[in-house]
């Protein structure tokens, strides 16, 4: 059995989740989603419901229970350091809206 360790930050004190518009806006901006105020307002209760649903899990006492990272007890597969891939420049660029001389071309992103 592999050792399984927690990646979950220490739990915050359990409170009823509240989702305000400001938080919805931040989540949207982190996901690069552009939303109107109306959309933000319509997502607010939906997200809050999802959080409330998931919050039910906190009713279970998990003291001393290690998080499960997989259910079939397999080990991570590793590969040897051998060159087996690459040399696909044309395929890699095939879906790019714009490319030149082997580079992807994107709108300027430097300040």
């Amino acid at each position: 059995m592999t050792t399984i360790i927690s990646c979950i930050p220490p739990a915050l004190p359990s409170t009823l989740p509240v989702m305000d518009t400001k938080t919805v806006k931040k989540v949207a901006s982190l996901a690069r989603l552009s939303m109107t105020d109306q959309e933000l307002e319509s997502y607010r209760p939906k997200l809050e419901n999802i959080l409330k649903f998931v919050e039910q899990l906190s009713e279970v006492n998990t003291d001393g229970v290690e998080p499960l990272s997989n259910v079939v007890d397999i080990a991570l597969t590793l590969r040897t350091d051998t060159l087996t891939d690459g040399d696909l420049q044309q395929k890699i660029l095939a879906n790019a809206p714009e490319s030149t001389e082997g580079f992807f071309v994107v709108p300027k992103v430097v300040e």
Partner: protein
Amino acid sequence: MAQIIKGRTGEWEIVIGMEVHAQVTANTKLFSGASAVFGAEPNSQVSMVDAAMPGMLPTLNAYCVEQAVRTGLGLNAEIHATSVFERKNYFYPDLPQGYQISQYLHPIVGKGKIEIDLPQGDVKEIGITRLHLEQDAGKSLHDQHPTKSFVDLNRSGCALMEIVSEPDLRGAEEAAAYLSKLRMILRYLGTCDGNMEEGSMRADVNVSVRKPGGALGTRCEIKNVNSVKAVQMAIDYESRRQVDIIEDGGTIHQETRLWDPTKGETRSMRSKEDAHDYRYFPDPDLLPLVLDNAWIASIKQTLPELPDQKKHRFMQDYGLGAYDSGVLIAERIRADFFESVAKGRDAKMAANWVLNELLGVLNKDGKNLDQSPITAAQLGGLIDLIVDNTISGKIAKDVFADMYATSKDAAKIVDEKGLKQVTDIGAIEKTVDQVIAANPDNVAAYRGGKDKLFGFFVGQVMKETGGKANPEIVNQLLKDKLK
């Protein structure tokens, strides 16, 4: 030492921590079988995994894991038997996945320490906080087009070790010494080539200032410092900037700043202001990495002698000073070269010829030791000729210049040019008599008390013999005859 800045309101201490990204020396990438070699045609070393095509799965490179463990051992650090890969989420054109696979709460290597060498031969211990494995991003070029950026994903997915130090560094000199020592250790271990120009080693520098001994100040992270010199300049600039702001009644805001090498200043990277919400979570495509303790122990067995161990051994076994030892161990190839020259010979003489003569002339020609026209065995041969009195030290320098130009053995050059030292007392005596006979005025003056003229007589005898007369015999004969 520039550890302290003098401001209007008194002294300020500079506190520095470093995050060094070192590209793992490996043939292929951390999670794909595409080449990790620098300098190829753009996007020619990109697999579907690296380009983040839907459905592609990462497979961990076992050699990169081994290299990270080797590095951890070389940094005297604890190796974590279980570590976890997590996703660090952010958007940038050279990050096709939209996240970087990194390690966060459970890195592969934990706390360690290294020693840095300071001027005056002092050493200081610097704590290592952690080392973790992560993917590199691609490379963006911003100077090719007025309104566009060009993206090359060849570097995307290459394995990096992020090595984080404790905020133990004080001032630019210590930061530079830390970076140099870290690079030396990585090169000895063979886990990173340490080439800052090609970007295989990059440093982010966290700088803050405080009243000496006071609570830590707010830090700014400086990016894009790509040489040891740039690290020093950026720290000097940034610490001064922070002191000026505080003394003018302002406060430092934690932010990411960019070092501008042309202007010699740091400036705020506004784009990074909102970027610190990375929403890490364990990568569902990768199980925890579990290492076998016996395997870790077997890697420990194969560690080379590290720079500090070598330095101490050179001082003890060869009787060399701390400075000379430090210069000799700066590169593994240099230390090896010295040791083959010194084997069975006078170590100080060997060190002198390697450091002052060979490295001097190579440095002048802009060459590295591996391009030396003189091999270690050949340099040893030259030293042997001096020791057994075949040639004098002065002639040896001429022979050395010939060896450097032609790559011939010292003995061959001495033979061809007839440079063998004359040790036949009768022959030298004859020349000494001639010189004395030809310079009656100087002889009289010398006997009259002008001691400095002795050098003139030695010079004349050497001139007559083409520099080949044994200097000790010449001196002795002249002393006797000029009494």
